[in-house]
């Protein structure tokens, strides 16, 4: 129906060779990435147009569902060509914001302009230039990957022939040629996400919304998606991605907004946010849970920062405030270990690491704050 049988056989042969080359290529790619000392997040500054209209400009967005305020006054400015990370827990308002900006949901208050067009009155102008991927704008599970792309191609105004060519090209570029004829319902999470992103590139969008692009993916698939996002951004498309992972925002986004309970609680570059959260976290696991109050007291008296008690009765962690220089961290940690030992507190495990997402949220949103004082909310970019 969609293609001739001979066509199909030919594709089968191509598919096998593609699988092979893709595995090789992926290996090579991963290898190269490992060597990169730092990720370039400028995505080709030349393509950016910082002087013109911002890609997204939202003021005071409010959305109310029944009793709850899903969005409680969101202000956003996203420059063209930027990769902007929207970081927050489930239910914080990330998806609602994207839905409003993609003209799928009407805000109850506030205004938003996307690529210079009003989200309420110029929906078609926006829809022609943005693409949405993610949980809430899904593909047809019972159709094949090829059919999904074909249908979307036709709906984007491509001719029959152009839709077929584009579908083939997209499947090839996203290493999905071998699965082109299979129902999407049988795809793995990584394949589905690649197809989803591929489907959003049928016509290259000026602005791409990625709703939690790597949630539930294994590390290898996640790296593939990250690489895709970087490619897309480099070609000049503005990307707004939502994520629950600090690391993801850190890897991809030039500018990050942390959202919680429908409000933006912090905004800045990842470096600014990290400085805000602290240089690191001291994780301590005790041998005896009875000694935790004692350990808490020692740490709180010794180090500047916020001590938190974990759900695990043996563990506690301390978010360290930014010290003047890195050597101080070691000195402080050393002193903590010594004092704990002197007080007879048995330690099973002691480590110093980057703050986890959970800790970053705790620091930035003030949720579940520990015994010590938490930071005030403020805009870091200001």
């Amino acid at each position, binding site marked *: 129906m969609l293609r001739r049988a001979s066509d199909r056989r030919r594709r089968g042969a191509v598919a096998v060779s593609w699988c092979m080359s893709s*595995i090789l*290529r992926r290996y090579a790619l991963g290898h190269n990435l490992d060597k990169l000392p730092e990720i370039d997040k400028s995505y080709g500054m030349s393509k950016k147009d910082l002087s013109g209209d911002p890609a997204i400009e939202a003021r005071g967005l409010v959305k109310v569902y029944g009793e709850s305020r899903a969005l409680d006054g969101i202000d956003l400015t996203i420059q063209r060509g930027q990769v902007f990370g929207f970081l927050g827990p489930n239910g914080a308002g990330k998806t609602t914001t994207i839905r409003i900006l993609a003209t799928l949901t*009407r805000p109850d208050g506030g205004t938003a302009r996307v690529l210079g067009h009003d989200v309420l009155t110029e929906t078609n102008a926006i829809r022609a230039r943005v693409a*949405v991927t993610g949980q809430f704008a899904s593909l047809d599970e019972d159709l094949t990957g090829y059919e999904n792309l074909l249908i979307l191609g036709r709906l984007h105004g491509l001719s029959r022939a152009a839709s077929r060519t584009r579908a083939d090209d*997209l499947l090839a*570029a996203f290493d999905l040629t071998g699965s082109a004829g299979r129902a999407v319902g049988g795809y793995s999470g990584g394949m589905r996400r690649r197809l989803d992103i591929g489907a959003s590139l049928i016509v290259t969008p000026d602005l791409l919304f990625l709703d939690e692009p790597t949630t539930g993916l294994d590390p290898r698939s996640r790296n593939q998606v990250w690489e895709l996002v970087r490619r*897309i951004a*480099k070609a000049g498309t503005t990307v707004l991605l939502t994520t629950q992972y600090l690391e993801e925002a850190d890897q991809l986004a030039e500018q990050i907004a942390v959202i919680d309970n429908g409000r933006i609680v912090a905004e800045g570059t990842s470096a600014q946010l990290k400085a805000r959260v602290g240089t690191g976290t001291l994780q301590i696991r005790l041998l005896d849970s009875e000694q935790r109050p004692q350990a808490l007291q020692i740490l709180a008296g010794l180090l500047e920062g916020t001590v938190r008690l974990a759900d695990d009765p043996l563990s506690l962690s301390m978010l360290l405030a930014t010290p003047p220089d890195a050597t101080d961290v070691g000195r402080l940690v050393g002193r903590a270990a010594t004092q704990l030992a002197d007080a007879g507190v048995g330690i099973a495990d002691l480590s110093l690491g980057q703050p986890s997402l959970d800790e970053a949220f705790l620091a930035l949103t003030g949720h579940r704050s520990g015994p010590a004082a938490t930071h005030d909310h403020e805009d870091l970019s200001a």
Partner: protein
Amino acid sequence: MSTPATSTRPAAAEADPIDALLAAGRTRRRAGALVASATFGRRAMLKIKHDPKQLVDSAAIPILFTVLFTYLFGGAVSGSTGDYLKMLLPGVLCMSIAIVTMYGGARLAQDVQSGAFDRFRGLPIWRGAFVVGGLLSDAARYLFASAIVVVLGLVMGYRPAGGAPGVIAAVALVIAFGLSLSLLWAAVALVIHDPAVVLSIANAVLIPLSFASNIFVTPATMPRWLRDFVDVNPLSHVATASRDLMNSTGGTGGAVAWSLIATGVVTLVCAPITLHLYSKQG
């Protein structure tokens, strides 16, 4: 995936395929309303192709109703199944199609739930295309269900005096009425978003409409209040019109006109509501 032995594609030498894709996808053209509608119709057909079980409801209901009611009531109502078929078959055609309409609403609710609906809604296409495409595929399903009823009737001994033209006209009329009901269930689905609830609501409307009609028996023996309801029930008019057309009773005109009016009214009321609900930004 197979184990790679050799790579036949000189991938390393080429520019990244994603970059090439992005560069090639810069031209924008808006899909026309017709193309978009046809594409949604095609999507529904592809879904049937992949999951033919979808057609079971469109097939089982006509078969069940035609066979069951013919032998259940035939002897009692008309003395023989042969005579009863003359009255029943056009009516069962209406009832079968009316019942089958509700599955279209359930499928739309399913699309809303899964998020496929939002993906399409975010495209720069005519807002009616999704609904019209759904109607196109519904029409194909109704045609399929109608064919089953007619063929079964012929097998069981029904000989329509109206001949092929009468049967075709009746089927066309019933499908048109069915499509107006489709629009109604589409509107319900866009409010309710839950396939099971949409089916319950449609059932609660369609079952009483089907039985409190002139499909199975003539209203002559019914109490006054029920007869009044049967007389205004649009399904009665569609059933009468189908009988007139298929049996070539000569009484054609009144019932057909009433059926077309009912179809028109339901469509005129439901189409704008459905379109509004479709394009409403939640």
